């Protein structure tokens, strides 16, 4: 990298410091533009086409028909009154899932990160323990928990000696929903914990010392020192957790498949089935649903960043 310096110095002479910002941004933005942004734009176009052909060139333009179809409801309060009742069921399920999962996920990750940030014996072992599920592919995650929770699973086996009859947990609407929330927390907690852990390490130690000298109780240190200074990283966690919760799919799909009935049918599964599984495929409708989902997320994220920006300035020394 030392070699890179000479030409880059010349570049800097020409481009100035502002130009260097562009230089730093360029590689990422280039790859990003081609492989992330462009497909999303194409997807937007998809949402305005119809038919069962896969490639855009063979599809007919239908304007906002697909959106109209999604919004074709007699009453927006009752999903069953909608043309695409599954979409609205999924919207409702996803909403509750996000509320529950994000709250608990962040709570648990934060607690875990705080604990792993303490002076512990065998700290890397404990970190590995909590990070472990992240290493598993979603399919395996779904599978493990299915094997635990299904009628012939480990849970019933464990409860059996205590006099409980085997229960089909995953056929219970409430429990299945809770399991979907729980398993997705289980699977992703390590991810957020790690981000928060790095953030905690970045808080200067002398501030904790000052707080201790100020006679601060641990709980107050947490609320008044740790949390505000963790804000930039906490923001990452909140935004990512939210986005991923809205997009929940793989592990829950393996675990409950959206059941029992449609009680754990989430948006991504709806999109996936509409666009890929059902015959004939309806890629246009799926694209429209995904665009709507994206729009909601953009709004939510903007709100969070708005809140975050305030704190960001606070964080500066």
């Amino acid at each position, binding site marked *: 990298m030392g070699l890179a310096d000479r030409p880059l110095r010349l570049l800097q002479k020409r481009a100035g410091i502002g130009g260097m910002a562009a230089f730093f941004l360029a590689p990422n933005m280039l790859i990003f533009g081609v492989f992330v942004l462009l497909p999303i734009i194409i997807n937007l176009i998809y949402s305005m086409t119809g038919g069962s052909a896969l490639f855009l060139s063979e599809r007919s333009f239908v304007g906002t028909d697909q959106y109209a179809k999604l919004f074709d409801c007699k009453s927006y309060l009752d999903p069953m009154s909608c043309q695409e009742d599954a979409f609205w069921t999924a919207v409702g399920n996803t909403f509750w899932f996000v509320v529950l999962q994000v709250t608990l996920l962040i709570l648990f990750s934060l607690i875990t990160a705080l604990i792993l940030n303490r002076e512990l014996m065998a700290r890397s072992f404990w970190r590995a323990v909590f990070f472990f599920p992240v290493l598993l592919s979603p399919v395996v995650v779904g599978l493990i928990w299915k094997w635990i929770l299904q009628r012939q699973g480990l849970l019933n086996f464990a409860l059996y000696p205590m006099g409980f009859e085997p229960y089909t947990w995953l*056929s219970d609407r409430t429990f299945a929903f809770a399991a979907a929330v729980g398993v997705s927390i289980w699977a992703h907690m390590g991810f957020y914990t790690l981000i928060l852990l790095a953030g905690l390490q970045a808080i200067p130690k002398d501030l904790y010392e000052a707080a201790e000298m100020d006679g601060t109780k641990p709980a107050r240190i947490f609320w008044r020192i740790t949390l505000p200074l963790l804000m930039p990283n906490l923001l990452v966690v909140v935004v990512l957790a939210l986005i991923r919760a809205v997009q929940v799919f793989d592990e829950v799909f393996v675990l*409950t498949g959206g059941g029992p009935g449609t009680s754990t049918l989430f948006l991504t599964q709806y999109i996936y089935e509409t666009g890929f599984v059902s015959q004939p495929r309806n890629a246009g409708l799926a694209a429209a649903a995904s665009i709507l989902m994206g729009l909601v997320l953009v709004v939510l994220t903007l709100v969070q960043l708005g809140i975050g920006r305030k704190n960001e300035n606070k964080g500066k020394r």
Partner: protein
Amino acid sequence: GDVRIMWYSDGIEGEVFQDLVNRFMKENPGINVIVDNVAYSVIKEQLPVQLEAGNGPDIARVTAIKDLAKHWLDLRPLVADAKYWDENFGANADWMRPDGSNQISGFMTQLTLTGGFANKTLFEQANVPLPGPKATWDEWAAAAKKVAQSQQIPYPMAMDRSGHRITGPAISNGANYIGKDGKPAPLDAGAKGFLGKFVDWSKDGTMSKDVWVSAAGQSYRAAADDFINGQVAFYYAGSWQVPNFAKKIGTNFDWVATGSPCGPAACTGLPGGAALVAVKYTKNAKEVAKVMDYLARKDIVKEFSERTLFLPAHKGVIAEGVNFKTDSALVKEALNTFVNATKTTSDLANKMPGWRWSDTMYGAVVTRTAQAVAGEMSKEDAFTRIDSDVAEKVKASSL
């Protein structure tokens, strides 16, 4: 040159196939056949995308053979003996070619047929005789309930969560999905009759409800594990489960294949299977044909079936009889039951695999029936929704 085959496996067939391919390469040193083993999801979801883009392998083992028919290569001018193909594979040739053509696209590597399995040991322990070959669904239900009650098992009967599975009994009950114009017809009394009965059975505990509620939409779910663990007296699945049961049940209990129970209209199961087809976009059609010719050879088909415990689709081979390579009497008997059951398959059932809208029907049926089973909607609502879902699909696809 290279000939690439995209192949998926449910069991050991990949190894057997590779074996046969190796032998081919020894005989034909100029042709390099590469078998790309893939997950079934690749065949189902990615292959169509590749094909639309004009990519794809030279040969593929596929199940959505009708939907993708426009991508298959016509082997008729390329194979050594087209007549041999027509004679032996003619019965299923229509499933894999564009409507109205006489194209030879490939052949079925495996024929499947839906059908029932009974846990013989449970029946014996309950002292309930196994219903005979002509027994109806109701008779099976009654017998299975008795067994379940006496043996304290949770489910008398179970059926895979699949539109394909439930359609066989529906046809036996007089259902016909295919309208006069070849497009889907609204559900008729026969269909509503069996679907309704199925919902009722699920609700009153005759049928295992768990499999059907264990997913939303059209996901496939098998109830095989319950059967393997002796939790079900009668299980409606299909011929492909035979090797699976052989391996996993072992000597835990005795089981038999029962064929499909009867309804007023028929005693039919639903056929299906996987086909090996050549892809139009190949660069070495000649060599592809040579490979296909080899794989379709009677002795090769026979060996493949015998070793994989699959039902063959080759007329000559069936006629000659297959000596399945297994030392389990149960398996042999079960396979023979399925071979025999092919004879009672109704015409309507035989048409389904070659009908363009069958998957659309299956999807709507399974989605909505499952919702009715889960108690999310009434039977009547489910029927209405099935009709409207299908109509909507038909409309949307013609845009």
